[in-house]
């Protein structure tokens, strides 16, 4: 059962990660190279996936686009984890007290702003760009990790081994770091995978409406936006970036499901 989603998920994720990594060293063509004469070529031995409206090689664009998507999503999830987890742990350590209430209400507040709205506000102020997309998706991720780690930590605080640690004279923050955190790591990894896939989707959406990575940096969302006006005559331009997003997100979701089953045997149920 567990291999059914873990393996295909890992394969897909590995494929796109390697494409992104390889693109740092090598791409079939230079993505900044504009060659109008060879635009709109279909798949061939030279251009495996053809060329776009500027004559740029689609495969190279997709490889560099993978880099943009993955970088934005990874940093955004990192922000969410680095800020959200300590907040969640602090809330759990001070459960029922003012700090807990304060952190959780703050979470509710951030939840009221969908990532897109945060991005719109940031863009309205500072202009569009990959960095602002990272900040927007990152802020959106904070309450997700804060809630998750608070919830998981709360049940751990009632356990005997925590009581033993307190009896040994350890303070709340030391217990949180030394005992609680390692025990919720699995949960965080699984949620991290899911948020990562949502981050890829969010980045693509923001780039699609022009709020994410700016030209000449290739990104999957931007490629789709460019292809929108050409969809009648050159539908293949819209096909590849869309498929790349779909397969990466699918891979991450399958990997997340598989990891959850694999890391937590108690959850190994038939659904």
């Amino acid at each position: 059962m567990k291999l059914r989603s873990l393996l295909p998920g890992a394969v897909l994720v590995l494929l796109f990660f390697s494409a992104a990594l390889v693109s740092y060293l090598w791409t079939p063509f230079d993505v900044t190279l504009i060659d109008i004469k060879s635009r709109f070529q279909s798949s061939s031995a030279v251009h495996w996936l053809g060329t776009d409206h500027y004559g740029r090689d689609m495969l190279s664009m997709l490889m560099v686009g993978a880099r943009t998507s993955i970088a934005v999503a990874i940093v955004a999830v990192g922000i969410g984890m680095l800020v959200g987890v300590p907040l969640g742990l602090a809330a759990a350590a001070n459960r029922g007290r003012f700090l807990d209430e304060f952190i959780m209400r703050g979470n509710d507040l951030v939840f009221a702003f969908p990532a897109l709205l945060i991005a719109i506000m940031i863009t309205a102020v500072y202009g569009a760009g990959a960095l602002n997309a990272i900040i927007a998706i990152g802020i959106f991720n904070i309450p997700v990790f804060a809630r998750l780690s608070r919830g998981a930590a709360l049940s751990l605080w009632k356990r005997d081994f925590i009581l033993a640690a307190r009896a040994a004279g350890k303070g709340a923050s030391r217990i949180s770091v030394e005992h609680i955190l390692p025990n919720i790591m699995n949960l965080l990894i699984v949620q991290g995978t899911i948020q990562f896939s949502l981050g890829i989707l969010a980045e693509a959406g923001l780039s699609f409406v022009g709020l994410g990575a700016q030209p000449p940096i290739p990104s999957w969302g931007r490629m789709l936006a460019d292809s929108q006006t050409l969809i009648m005559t050159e539908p293949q331009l819209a096909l590849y970036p869309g498929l790349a997003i779909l397969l990466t997100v699918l891979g991450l979701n399958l990997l997340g499901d598989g990891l959850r089953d694999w890391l937590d045997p108690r959850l190994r149920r038939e659904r």
Partner: protein
Amino acid sequence: MLHYLIKRTLILLATLIVASLVVFVTIEVVPGDPASYMLGLNAQEDTVAALRAELGLDKSRVARYFSWVGGLVTGDFGTSYTYRTPVADMVADRMWVSLPLAIYALLLSTLIAFPAGVYAASRRGGTTDTVVMALTQLGVAIPNFWFAMLLVLLFAINLGWFSAGGFPGWDAGVFQALKSLTLPAIALALPQASILTRVMRSSLLDVLNEDYMRTARAKGLTRRQALWKHALRNAMVPVLTIIGLQFSFLLAGAIIIENVFYLPGLGRLIFQSIASRDLIVVESVVMLLVLAVVLVTFLVDLAYAWVDPRLRGAR
């Protein structure tokens, strides 16, 4: 229940006040002055000053915050810098596109998810279940704006059943208006329907394992009778929660889809306003969407507490 209601209402108000502060402060730190932006580089100083006074930009930030919030409460959202028309009128016009679109998408997603979830749960582990679950995996992973483009390619360009974009307005007839909202609504509904199907299925599976279901079967009810009489009603609580929360997601998610289909809704309005630095419009529309999200969450919480009294004491 009354105590819970008062507590939740106070939290709702506090959230809205802080949210309005966040929106106002974020937008207010914008470098540059809308008045000089509107009048261009060669504007006379006194002309700019006159426009600043007209737009109320010469007042202090605190005064402007209170007049903005006061306006929001009374339905006066200020005047658009670029169009020189009341923001409330612009929002109301666009609302007639965005709101029906969100409701349409919500209906579609529920209509797809309900039978699919029930069907998958009642045939757990079978081929149908596997196929439905695989489809939901795809539905969650597909970017809805890309799906929208594929819909346009197939149904508008190749088959010619729908127009590729635009909105004729409700004056052109309900049928025509709904027709032009159909592809956008499908594109919006797909990911939501996938999530809802999964929630419906797992919620139903939880209920099917309950003791009272075994009792119902032992009483002599058939599987189908037990499912319809006992299981569905109990499984609906988490499903209704998700439906409630999805509404606000649909309203915000429509921002991108409206751009694919060139629909004159709130999403297009927000982008046009960013482009023309019409910040009073951005401010008000963002606040309106936040209000929608917070209000829906509040209503869902209340509904939950009403159904399940144990939740009233929690938190």
